[in-house]
Each structure stands twice: as structure tokens, then as C-alpha cells.
């Protein structure tokens, strides 16, 4: 047997090296795992800081020994290529692995093993972990705000109806498809507004009136973002066209509008809607706070929408404009039948991103006193019966928002990929 050369493992001594290397790595992993899960230090005989560095050093030596180019072993080659290209990479690999192992037991025990979910008061939470009872008890409040419990079906029905109406476009007959844009831009918002007004607000058809002040929770997030999206889209389209117009007055009005709203933070816009806007309304004219907020966010998002749509308009080749003009089309005919259909298809991912930003921005309406999910959390957190569960509440809300936003961003990636291939 040849002498073991620590610095230069190669194909000839692959067997010795891979065995010794994997044993070393195994030892280091066992050390870390026993440390994290069993809380026993196997290397306590070593002095001071060497104990903590021990698995790292051992793992590094092991990985170094396994690093053999063109070893002929498929798994080994794959491993070397992906996590073990050089010493620095090996170190980072080990650090990531070790920190995952170290972080696993405390987070698992907090979230699952030491957590409580039974019962319906604070006393049920006896463990050292999370108190999911809190979320369970407050779940309806987080979803529906202060909306009366017995009327929650109204919100659910309204949402199902609105979503169902949104899908009508997919099932429309071929000869009606030309009215699709008209449907989505004008008819759908009106119907959706009526559905939400009559079902959620109530007041007629024997339904009890529920003030908008009682609306809240996640459903309010959906309502606000839904209305802002459907209203900001046409508005944004107008300003995008305006910005590209060759009439100077219209162009500069559009530029001023877009740059103004893009230059101010949403929170000041909300402040404006709640404290400054009432001053600008005629006397004795009352406008609901929720409506004011929706108008403010719509105006704000329309500017972002306009910039996205302008990007789509700009990316169309000049030939499209020239061809449409040479057919004798006027401005409106050209845009409605040639330019916008193509440009809007291009900007669907961008619009999806704007919508994503809109959903992430809606918790902000909390600062003007609308009890959206973040607002409900703040309310629940200060409830004297449920003090001290801020962590659970925010983790719960984060998970919900994360799922929504992640799904949306994945969907927008898919759309992007889908439309990329078509051109």
C-alpha cells in the first residue's frame, strides 16, 4: 500500500481516500448532530475553542481528501462538482450544513413539540413553545376583522362570486371575445362593486347594514387590492398613452402626474387621504374612509402601472406603428386594434409585479386606522387577555402573506416564460 499523501489525492488511491474522507465527515456530522439534538458534547476532552472548531476542521480535511478529479465514481464527481470545488467552497458547505443542523432543534421544538394549540384561553398555553391557541381563537378576527360573526358567509359568498365572474372571460364564446376588454375594463368592475356593496355592506335585500369600520382582516386586504388593481389599470393606461403623446400639454401633464406619485411614499399619500382630502371635498359631502383610501392607493398605483405599460409600448417595434398608419388608421383605431393588444400582452408580468407590490403595500392602511391584518394583529396584541404573543401573530401573518406573494411571483414568472416563447 502506498503512502498516504494528504495533499494530493488522485485516482490511484481513490479507495483509501474516499473511505477515510467519508469517515471523517461522518464523525464531524455525528458530533454536530449529537451536540444539537442530544445536547451532549462528544469532544469535551478537547481544550476550549478547539471543541467548537473540531467538526469543522475534521469535515474540511475529509472533504479535501474526497476531492478527486475525474474519479470515475458518478456520485463522487457530482458531489465534488456541486458542493466541494475548492477549500473555500467546502468550508461554506460545512458552515451551511452545520448551521441548519444547529437551528433545527430549537425552531422545531418552538413551533411544534413544545407548542400548544388546544384550549381556548391563554391558560391553555403551558409549554415553552409557541401558543397557537392564540391564532386559533383569533383566527376569524384575523380573517374578517370586526365583521359580525354570523355574517361571515356574506364575505365568502361575495368573494366566490367576484372570482367566478373574473373567470367568465375564459368561457366566453368565440364571437363574444371581442368584447372581452370592454367586459374587464368597465362591466366587471361595476358588477364587482355592486356585489361587494350589496353583499358585504348590506343595507337592502333584507341584509343588515355593516359599517366599513367593522371590515378588516385579510378580507379587507383583498377588497382594497382588488379595487385598486381594477381601477388603476385603465387609469395607468391613459397616462402611459399620454406620456407618449406628441401633444406637449398632454405629455407634460402625464409626466407631472406620474413623477409626482412615484416620488412620494405611500404612507404620505394615505395621510393625505385621511387628513387633507376631506378639506378638499364640498361641504356636507361625506366620503367613507375606506373609499378615500382606495382612491388614494389607486391614484398612487396608477403611476406605477403607467410606467409598466409605457415600457410595453416602447418595446414594440416601430414597424407596427408605421404599418398601422399606412393602413390609414387614426390614433385611437391604431392603439385599440394594433398597439395596445400587443403591448398589454408584453406587460402582463410587469403588471403582475405591480399587483404584487400593491398587495404588499396594503398592510400600510393600518396607519390611517383601518384594521387590516396588521391592524388586527396590533389590536390582538394589546388585548389584556392575550398579552405577550406578538411573535406568534407576526409569524402567522408573515406565513399567510408569504404564501400569497410567493404564489403570485411564481405565477408571474410562468406568465413571463409563456409569453417569451411566443415572440
Amino acid at each position, binding site marked *: 500500500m502506498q503512502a498516504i499523501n494528504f495533499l494530493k489525492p488522485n485516482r490511484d488511491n481513490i479507495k483509501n481516500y474516499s473511505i477515510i474522507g467519508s469517515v471523517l465527515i461522518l464523525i464531524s456530522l455525528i458530533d454536530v448532530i449529537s451536540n444539537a439534538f442530544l445536547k451532549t458534547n462528544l469532544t469535551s476532552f478537547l481544550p476550549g475553542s478547539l471543541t467548537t472548531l473540531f467538526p469543522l476542521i475534521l469535515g474540511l480535511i475529509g472533504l479535501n481528501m474526497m476531492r478527486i478529479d475525474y474519479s470515475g465514481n458518478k456520485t463522487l464527481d457530482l458531489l465534488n462538482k*456541486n458542493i466541494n470545488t475548492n477549500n473555500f467552497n467546502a468550508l461554506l458547505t460545512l458552515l451551511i450544513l452545520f448551521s441548519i443542523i444547529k437551528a433545527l432543534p430549537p425552531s422545531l421544538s418552538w413551533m411544534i413539540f413544545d407548542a400548544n394549540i388546544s384550549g381556548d384561553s391563554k391558560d391553555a398555553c403551558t409549554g415553552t413553545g409557541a401558543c397557537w391557541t392564540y391564532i386559533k381563537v383569533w383566527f376569524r378576527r384575523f380573517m374578517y376583522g370586526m365583521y359580525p360573526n354570523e355574517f361571515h358567509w356574506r364575505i365568502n359568498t361575495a368573494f366566490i362570486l367576484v372570482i367566478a365572474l373574473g373567470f367568465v372571460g375564459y368561457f366566453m364564446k368565440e364571437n363574444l371575445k371581442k368584447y372581452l376588454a370592454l367586459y374587464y375594463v368597465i362591466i366587471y368592475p361595476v358588477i364587482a362593486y355592486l356585489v361587494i356593496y350589496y353583499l358585504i355592506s348590506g343595507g337592502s335585500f333584507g341584509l343588515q347594514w355593516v359599517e366599513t369600520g367593522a371590515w378588516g382582516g385579510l378580507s379587507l386586504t383583498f377588497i382594497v387590492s382588488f379595487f385598486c388593481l381594477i381601477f388603476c389599470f385603465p387609469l395607468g393606461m391613459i397616462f402611459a398613452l399620454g406620456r407618449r403623446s406628441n401633444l406637449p400639454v398632454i405629455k407634460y401633464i402625464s409626466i407631472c402626474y406620474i413623477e409626482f406619485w412615484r416620488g412620494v411614499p405611500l404612507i404620505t399619500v394615505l395621510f393625505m387621504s385621511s387628513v387633507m382630502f376631506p378639506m378638499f371635498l364640498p361641504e356636507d359631502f361625506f366620503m367613507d374612509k375606506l373609499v378615500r383610501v382606495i382612491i388614494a392607493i389607486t391614484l398612487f398605483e396608477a403611476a406605477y402601472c403607467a410606467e409598466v405599460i409605457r415600457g410595453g409600448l416602447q418595446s414594440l417595434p416601430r414597424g407596427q406603428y408605421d404599418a398601422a398608419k399606412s393602413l390609414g388608421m387614426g390614433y385611437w383605431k391604431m392603439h385599440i386594434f394594433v398597439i395596445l393588444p400587443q403591448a398589454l400582452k408584453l406587460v402582463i408580468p410587469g403588471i403582475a409585479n405591480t399587483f404584487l407590490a400593491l398587495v404588499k403595500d396594503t398592510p400600510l392602511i393600518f396607519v390611517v386606522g383601518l384594521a387590516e391584518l396588521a391592524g388586527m394583529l396590533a389590536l390582538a396584541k394589546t388585548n389584556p387577555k392575550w398579552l405577550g404573543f406578538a411573535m406568534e401573530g407576526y409569524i402567522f401573518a408573515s406565513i399567510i402573506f408569504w404564501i400569497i406573494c410567493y404564489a403570485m411571483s411564481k405565477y408571474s414568472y410562468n406568465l413571463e416564460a409563456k409569453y417569451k416563447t411566443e415572440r
Partner: protein
Amino acid sequence: MNNIIKKFLPQILAILFVVLIFGFLTINAQTNMDNRGIDFGFGFLSQESSFDVQFSLIEYSGSDSYARAFLVGLLNTLLVSFISIIFCTILGVIIGVARLSSNYLIKNSAAWYVEFFRNIPLLLQIFFWYYAALRALPLPEKANAWFGVTYMTVKGYYIPAMVWENLNVFLYCGLAAIISIIILRNYANNLRDNKGKQIPVLLYSLAILIILPLLSFLIGGVSLEFELPQLKKLSKISYIYEGGISLPPELIALVLALSLYTSTFVAECVRAGIEGVSKGQKEAAASVGLTPNQVLKLVIMPQALRIIIPPTTNQYLNLTKNSSLAAAIAYPDLVLVFAGTALMQTGKAIEIVSITMLTYLTISLTIAAIMNWYNKKIEIKEK
């Protein structure tokens, strides 16, 4: 004739529309203010504000004017934006480069980091850090020292303060060092262009940067002492640290949330920038005999930066605007101090909200203008 109508009619209508809206709003505001007995004007700015601000960079007390309160808020906003921008850039560059790593684990951890922090609303993140994470910190008397001299407690982060003597001499020395480095660089560039000689500029600049300020300590009479935070007993159960600088938990929560959130966007910009440089550039540079370091410095980075910088500046702008969320956790920034407390006291809604909006607008437009100028400068000039 037809053409003239087509050209001017829409413009006249647009002007009329805008004028009508503004006129309608102004008349309403006028009548509303008359009815409530409020008069329009900015005279209140010089009045005594008579409220206190928890944390301010400049001297401020209740006897100062509203204008000074505005300045305090603005400076606090700029402070938190500045710190967050530094952290988010460092983090963003690391994560962005890590996403391009050949190591499977690193690549995926970076990708999950981005997906995780990008998809949670910023307000929730701020709340999480402020109400949940930072509340779990120890009380002042139970805190362990970090790095021996700093204390992270539930009441804030206490760090030593620097006590300077003859600070101005030190600053002049630093300024002189920077100027001489610029001169040296120009000289070296000239030398390289004209005679083809290379001198190690980086080494010389580092030497200047260290030696000149060091000289100010040795000869200029500059001295630096650290004032350490000391634990002090206020009452039986309440302790506090005195001396040093205390960073309030609001600031820490805000900086943490802003930099973690924005770093994901910066990381994406960095990744797109580096991926945007075509492989052929790298190979071409290597084939003319540049060393790997030179390839990175002279070929890849200049091109990648051209792609990276504009969207990153945009992210900095977003961060500055997002820092207004500070109002939600009562960090005394522009929105809280001015559009919150000052508005509540004076009731001058229109004036105060418009000043606040105009301030943000000015910051945004200035940065946007600088960015446009920079874009024009670095644009590829094709022949």
C-alpha cells in the same frame, strides 16, 4: 383647419380639465377653512413647537420652532436611510454573488433568502423585529457585553462614544489624503497613457490614507478617547446605561427590516448585472492575455456596473421612501414628527402634508436626476 382642431382641441380640453379640478378643490378648501376658522399660511413654522422628540441628531427641545422639528425629522429619515443603504448594499452584493456560486447549497440558500424576505410585506417585517424579536432581548442589568464594550438590551443598543480633541485637524488630514489620492490617480493614468508605465496606485493610496491621519495623531495634537457606556441604577428595579451612544430599538428594528428587505432587490440587480455580461467578453479578455484579476477589474466589472447601478439606485430611492414606515413603530422620522405630531398640534393639514410630500418628492427627483446624468455618462457610445 381639421388638423389644427385635432392638435389643439385635446390640449385645450386637458388644460381645462386640470384647471377645473384644481379650481374645484381650491374653492372647496377655501370654504371649508373659512367655516372652520383656519387660515392658510406657513407662519406656524417659526412658532414654538412645544413637543419633545425622543431621538434627534441635533439639539432640540420643546422651545424650538416647528421648522427645527421638521429638520430633526428629516435628519432622522436620512440617518436611517443612510445606514440601511450601507447594510443592504453589503448584504445584497454578497447574496447576489452567492446566487451565482457553483456550490449547490450556497446558491439555493441565497435563492431562498431572496424569496423569503422579498415576499413578506415590509410593515410586517418591521413589526416582527420591533414587537417580537427585539422585545426578547435582555434587560440592561442582565445584558452581556458584545465585543466587550457594547450592550444590546431591550432598551436599545449601547455603544461607546468617541471623544475627539482637535477633530478639525484630523478631518483636514483626511481631506488632504483624499485630494492627494485623486492627484496621484490622475498622474498614474497620465503616465500609463503616455509612457505605458504602471505604478501600484492602490498600494500608494492605501499608504497615504493611513499615514496622513496617523501623522495628525502624532504631530497635530489630535487625540481620541472612548466613552464607555456604564450601568447606572435609576431606582430599585430600573437600570440604564449612561455615557456612550444609545441607539433606540426603533432605529435598530427599522434598519434591520429595511436592509434585509431591500438587500433582496439589490441582490437581484447584482445577479442580473453579472449575468448580463456576455461570456464572450470574458473569453476575449482572457485571450488577449489579461490575468483573471484584470479581467474582473477591467472588463467584467465596468460592464456589469453599467447594468447594476441604475436599478440599484432605484432601490435606494425605494428604501428612502419606505423608511417612512418608521411612523408605524414611532421612530421619530419626518412623517411621525411632522405629519404626525406637528399636524396634530397645529391642525394645518394642507400645509404640513404638502411640505412632507414635497420633501420626499425633492429627494426622489434629485436622485433621479443624478441617475439620469450618470446613465447618460456611462451609456455605450456606438459609432
